[in-house]
């Protein structure tokens, strides 16, 4: 329902006389909330056309102005949705079959899409937003990794040409390929690599590449300067991932978060980027049945409890954010969320700023919107009370000077209990239902408990009502017509009885509030009291094994232990080991503190390790734990551009579980779905820390290759992708490395140009895929190659020899025993399973004696897991080499410690208990190769990240926290809060062969 307002699109013809009056409109008597901080009572707002003319207490109202009396009401600046897909549909998959125009090869990069060109008014959605007071939105096409530009739209229901007031309001990005029909990317790391490559391509395009090819998307990416860049990131880890891209390319993002930013607050604030936060809050779980409740994780419970305090925490710490109703099923739900956020500590003016001034500033529209000031667009809305009052009602929204009535003012809530005076009788009238659809009933004033139905109709201030009068002494129906006065409190008019006689009637409201509203109030009060108690702290990570305090580097002397040194000293009995400042300081019998620390001052904790065994930490050469959203970017045969290091998931519970199994470091490998997979990440298991803090400083670079059935897609997928045979696999390598050689030459040649020549030449394109392979050729990146049968192992070594690189490690290498001498000659390490076989055809000849034979033949041999479950029992897997092939215990132990350190070129820092090495140590309750061995403590860089005894305290703490939140959830449900059904998390794990980011 829109009336009045501005003229039509100026340059378009008009059907009929032009509307030229543009009368000024004055709003008087309201409390005017000029900005989040300032409000003026009994003020006047004067507008003309689509602009505000004046705001203040003493505004002169020009003659001929329309005047709206808003006494007792509130007037607010219109809200701005910074993250909307209003009017901008996602691509139609049916139309994506053919490439139109000159575009980027991968349709996840759709940077040339411009929302301003795609915008189709969506009145339904616009009206839903206006009903909550929204008057403008930044709309984008939410489809793709580079999504193109967004436009700022006034929600005034006019033509796009009139409503779009900033056609280039933003440029938008995400990690999701959206509806791109191209296979790549299928993983988060693939998305990141693709975006990085596109941004590098844009640099090349600007530097002259455009002379070599045309590309509208690259063209668009060269024109980001000055645009607010919105990154639709998602969870807290994704915010950090996006920020690393921003840093690499000197960009500044506005980061959209799903509401968990508070879980990694310090790191996220350090980015310095403004955030867009949701107005959606997690629902409570139904935990009434304790069996159901077992399926709810403590992490989910804590998220429910803490999410409402997220915005307050961010604001307190100095972070800046805007809110979006995006994601809410009904925008009207935003007010309950906001009230809850305020209940949990959010400052009211910050909340309002996040709806108005902050988005206005972020999208460079402060001159137009966000506050009520002269010259700005007439965007505002009129309410019955304060925005955060539960009983608040939005009456009207004015967008660009155009009125949209939500609830007719003057039409009051008719609900209540009335005394109904009918000539000589007094009845009771009860009006319930909703203000829009009231329900009426009547009964006798005294002694009557049963309500008789009446039919009510309200049109503006006019009410009509009829009921069967038999019960009340009339001979038939009684019909009333009247007018509602005095905010609904008094109704009066004329009635006609069954005999045809007219008489006067009136109704006087006795009870102000209908009973259901009382219920709501009580519920609000109950919720207030439930939330008056403090919430728990943020744990790192937010699960039952998270911590509030990270372990410090300790100075410890282990006394009288059996020490598996892995060095020339072998296994020492009754030996001491001292760790200090994250390093192993001394190893030997009866260490003297006075000698170790001659200056004194250092206080070392003494751990009596009599009867216990001390070893270096287990290193898993082949793991897929702590990886987010996809372990394979297997969509192409060569994806050397993707990096596991981009997608470390520091919150993975398997980190903790591995620590409990004595693991201190792992190589996070890409999967084996393609011949040349992605770059590995080497991490230490610093549980609770952030992704970047897990990485091993200065670790050598690795990349995953793969051979055999997975690469040729024997067990899944289409049968037409090259390669389908081991013959083809070989050629993939030759092709890739010939290209990489040329690439390196091209870049060398360019670097050697004289400055003058350089200025003329188009710089060679930076290609992340070939760059990684050029590093292999240069010897600065090492290969870990998934392999099974002897022929393919020989093949890759031959390719390596003929091209001029080395294969660092063959992993799995289950037929390695057949070519052990060749492996030894090549100098490759082997990382194998202890006893896996028969899971596919190529492991038919796998034998558990593999490790023993390889070891005997002089190959550096490791036992690895490729599996989160086995990864926490690698000590047992190492022990199997004793059973299968008779490896000596000391050598067996090295297969999960020193040998993987060697394979990873980390043996100068890790893998043995020798002075100077990293204090990555495990204290066992007995022989670590025993089936009965238990880890008592695990140290990483001298910090105790696992302590079996302290786990009991942690468990008690988690249980207390769980019970406390359970009680709160139960109370919240009783107070009427919505709940969702309990859940079960499937404990799935990545393996080499897991394909895709989703099923």
């Amino acid at each position, binding site marked *: 329902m829109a009336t009045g307002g501005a003229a039509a699109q100026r340059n378009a013809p008009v059907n009929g006389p032009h509307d030229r009056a543009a009368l000024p409109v004055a709003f008087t008597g309201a409390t005017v909330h000029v900005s989040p901080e300032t409000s003026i009572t009994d003020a006047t707002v004067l507008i003309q056309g689509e602009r505000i003319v004046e705001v203040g207490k003493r505004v002169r109202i020009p003659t001929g102005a329309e005047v709206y009396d808003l006494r007792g009401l509130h007037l607010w600046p219109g809200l701005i949705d910074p993250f909307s897909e209003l009017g901008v549909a996602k691509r139609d998959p049916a139309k994506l079959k053919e490439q139109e125009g000159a575009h980027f090869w991968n349709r996840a990069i759709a940077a040339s899409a411009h929302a301003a060109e795609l915008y189709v008014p969506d009145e339904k959605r616009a009206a839903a937003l206006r009903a909550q007071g929204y008057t403008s939105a930044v709309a984008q096409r939410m489809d793709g990794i580079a999504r193109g530009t967004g436009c700022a739209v006034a929600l005034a229901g006019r033509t796009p040409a009139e409503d779009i007031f900033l056609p280039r309001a933003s440029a938008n990005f995400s990690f999701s390929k959206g509806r791109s029909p191209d296979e790549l990317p299928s993983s988060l790391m693939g998305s990141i690599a693709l975006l990085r490559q596109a941004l590098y391509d844009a640099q090349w395009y600007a530097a002259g590449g455009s002379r070599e090819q045309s590309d509208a998307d690259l063209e668009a990416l060269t024109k980001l300067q000055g645009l607010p860049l919105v990154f639709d990131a998602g969870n807290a880890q994704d915010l950090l991932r996006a920020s690393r891209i921003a840093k690499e390319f000197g960009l500044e993002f506005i980061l959209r978060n799903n509401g968990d930013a508070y879980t990694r607050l310090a790191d996220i604030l350090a980015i310095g980027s403004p955030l867009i936060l949701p107005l959606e809050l997690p629902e409570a779980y139904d935990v009434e049945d304790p069996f159901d409740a077992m399926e709810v994780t403590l992490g989910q419970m804590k998220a429910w409890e803490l999410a409402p305090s997220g915005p307050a925490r961010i604001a307190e710490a100095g972070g800046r954010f805007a809110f979006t109703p995006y994601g809410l099923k009904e925008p009207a739900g935003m007010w309950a969320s906001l009230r809850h956020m305020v209940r949990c500590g959010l400052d009211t003016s910050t909340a309002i700023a996040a709806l108005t001034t902050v988005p206005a500033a972020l999208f460079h529209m402060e001159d137009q919107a966000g506050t009520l000031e002269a010259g700005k667009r007439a965007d505002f809305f009129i309410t019955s009370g304060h925005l955060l009052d539960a009983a608040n009602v939005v009456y009207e929204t004015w967008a660009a000077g155009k009125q949209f009535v939500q609830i007719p003012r003057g039409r009051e809530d008719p609900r209540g209990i009335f005394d109904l005076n009918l000539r000589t009788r007094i009845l009771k009238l009860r009006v319930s239902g909703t203000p829009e659809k009231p329900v009426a009933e009547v009964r006798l004033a005294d002694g009557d408990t049963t309500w008789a139905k009446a039919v009510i109709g309200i049109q503006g201030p006019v009410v009509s009502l009829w009921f069967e009068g038999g019960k009340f002494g009339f001979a038939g129906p009684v019909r009333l017509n009247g007018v509602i006065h005095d905010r609904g409190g008094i109704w009066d008019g004329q009635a006609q009885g069954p005999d045809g006689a007219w008489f006067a009637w009136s109704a006087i409201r006795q009870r102000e509030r209908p009973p259901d509203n009382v219920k709501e109030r009580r519920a609000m009060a109950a919720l207030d009291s439930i939330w008056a108690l403090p919430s728990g702290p943020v744990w790192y990570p937010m699960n039952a094994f998270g911590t509030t305090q990270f372990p410090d580097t300790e100075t410890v002397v282990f006394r009288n232990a059996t020490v598996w040194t892995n060095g020339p000293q072998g296994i020492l009995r009754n030996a001491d080991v001292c760790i200090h400042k994250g390093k192993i300081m001394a190893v030997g019998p009866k260490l003297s503190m006075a000698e170790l620390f001659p200056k004194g001052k250092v206080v070392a904790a003494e751990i009596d390790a009599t009867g216990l065994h001390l070893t270096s930490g287990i290193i898993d050469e082949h793991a897929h734990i702590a990886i987010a959203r996809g372990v394979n970017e297997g969509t192409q045969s060569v994806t050397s551009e993707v990096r596991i290091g981009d997608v470390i998931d520091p919150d993975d519970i398997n980190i903790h*579980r591995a620590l409990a199994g004595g693991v201190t470091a792992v190589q996070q490998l890409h999967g084996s779905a393609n011949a040349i997979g992605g770059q590995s990440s080497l991490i230490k298991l610093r549980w609770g820390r952030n992704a970047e803090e897990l990485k091993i400083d200065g670790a050598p670079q690795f990349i995953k290759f793969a051979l055999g059935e997975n690469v040729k897609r024997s067990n899944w997928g289409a049968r037409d992708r090259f390669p389908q045979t081991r013959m083809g696999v070989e050629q993939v390598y030759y092709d890739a490395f010939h290209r990489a050689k040329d690439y390196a030459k091209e870049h060398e040649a360019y670097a050697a140009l004289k400055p003058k020549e350089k200025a003329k030449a188009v710089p060679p394109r930076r290609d992340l895929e070939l760059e990684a392979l050029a590093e292999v050729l240069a010897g600065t990146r090492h290969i870990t190659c998934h392999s099974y049968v002897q022929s393919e192992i020989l093949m890759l070594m031959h390719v390596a020899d003929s091209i001029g690189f080395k294969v660092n490690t063959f992993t799995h290498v289950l037929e390695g025993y057949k070519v052990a001498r060749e492996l030894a000659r090549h100098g490759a390490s082997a990382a194998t399973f202890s*006893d896996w076989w028969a899971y596919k055809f190529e492991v038919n000849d796998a034998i558990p004696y593999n490790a023993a034979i390889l070891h005997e033949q002089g190959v550096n041999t490791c036992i690895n897991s490729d599996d989160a479950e086995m990864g*926490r029992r690698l000590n047992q897997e190492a022990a199997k080499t004793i059973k299968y092939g008779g490896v000596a215990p000391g050598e067996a132990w090295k297969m999960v410690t020193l040998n993987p350190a060697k394979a990873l070129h980390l043996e100068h820092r890790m893998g043995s208990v020798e002075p100077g090495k990293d204090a990555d140590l495990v204290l066992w309750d007995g022989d670590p190769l025993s089936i009965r061995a238990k880890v008592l403590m695990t140290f990483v860089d001298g910090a105790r990240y696992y302590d079996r005894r302290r786990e009991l305290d942690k468990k008690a703490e988690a249980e207390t926290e769980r019970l406390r939140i359970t009680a709160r959830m139960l109370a919240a449900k009783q107070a009427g809060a919505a709940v969702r059904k*309990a859940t079960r998390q499937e*404990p799935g794990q990545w393996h080499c062969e897991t394909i895709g980011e989703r099923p």
Partner: protein
Amino acid sequence: MRTTASIMAWCCIAVAVAQRPSPAPAQAGSILIKGGTVHVGDGKTYDDGAVGFRNGTIDFVGYEYAVKAAYDSVIDAKGMQVYPGFILPDATLGLVEIDAVHASADEAETGSIEPEVRAITAYNADSKIIPTVRSNGVLLAQATPRGNLISGTSSIVQLDAWNNNDAVVKADDGIHLNWPAAFVQTGWWAEPGSTEKQAGDKRANALAGLRTFFLRAKAYAAQPFPRLTDLRLEAMRGLFQGKQTLYIHADGAREIQEAVLFAREMGVPRIVLVGGYDAWRVAPLLRDKKVDVVLQRLHSLPGREDDDVDLPYRLPALLKQGGVRFCLSYSGDMERMGARNLAFTAGTASAYGLSREDALRAITLDAAAILGIEQRYGSLEPGKSATLFISAGDALDMRGNKVVEAFIDGRRISLDNGQRQLWRQYEERYAKP
């Protein structure tokens, strides 16, 4: 005592052995194993013990000094350990050869309620995997179908046989029911969506279907000679007569509760719970309803994110505390080739609250009792089958598990396998200059 044989080291066995060695002939002469530690399987041990057997049946178990009868041959097991053959319940050994080769898979029939399909029919006694499992001490297994609401009928086999008929220890011992999960997750594990109770209808329909089926099966079983034969219903007959066991596969507390109450209500006398991750939480119910548990593989990750890191390892101790009888299984990923590690899961149980002999019992006597073969198998007692083996060390530990002799029904079986054969070949290759 006419001859004293010393133990032949397995590496000395003739090289020219097929990937599957020939099954051993029936026991000819009587045999006495003496000098080792004898683990009876019921908790008792005899240091310097002895086990004697003739015609496939044990006739002496005790201390070496108490041996009175004469035996044709004597095996000196001094310093070694003698165990009853380990028993692998809920297994698909012999039903699939190579996971990724669909043509080699016979474990899961299509359908929904298929009690009539019988694992023994498809059991491949020549599977190349079997000798690799047997050589770690697992001598008996329950060949079990998978999939569907009711997967089919299992059979118990011994692992040294010419063919599937020859392998049978107990044919058609039970029927396997997979209780539908009460909670189903949306999304997938790597990116879980909001999870909710399985969209009510599907599960409710499945449960209603089961109820109807069981009621019909019971009515059918009451007729000794039904006019028309119904294969599904006929297959269920033994359940109601107590001749067969109903194996209910369920892990969650809620599912276990539902399933056990259902089976009791249907009047099934013999019920065994398989999986049983949450069984300890409902131990009083299981005790009360006399339900034994075939526990899931202990070497598993915790089933819930918040569960203790070592909860899977402690499940046996928790069940023992709760007074519930249980045995161990190795079901799950890589269950066939991994089954040779069954003993090590018992080793783990012994590190997490169970005594070593109790842990052993969970893969011997209690496994036999739960599978209903304890009259003949599961422990070293006079009158029982001579199904046993000698290990150089603690067979529950990777370092000690070196099986040097094994007997099934008194038959001295080969411990060779295709993997050992390849090992020997390549040792030989590298030994040559």
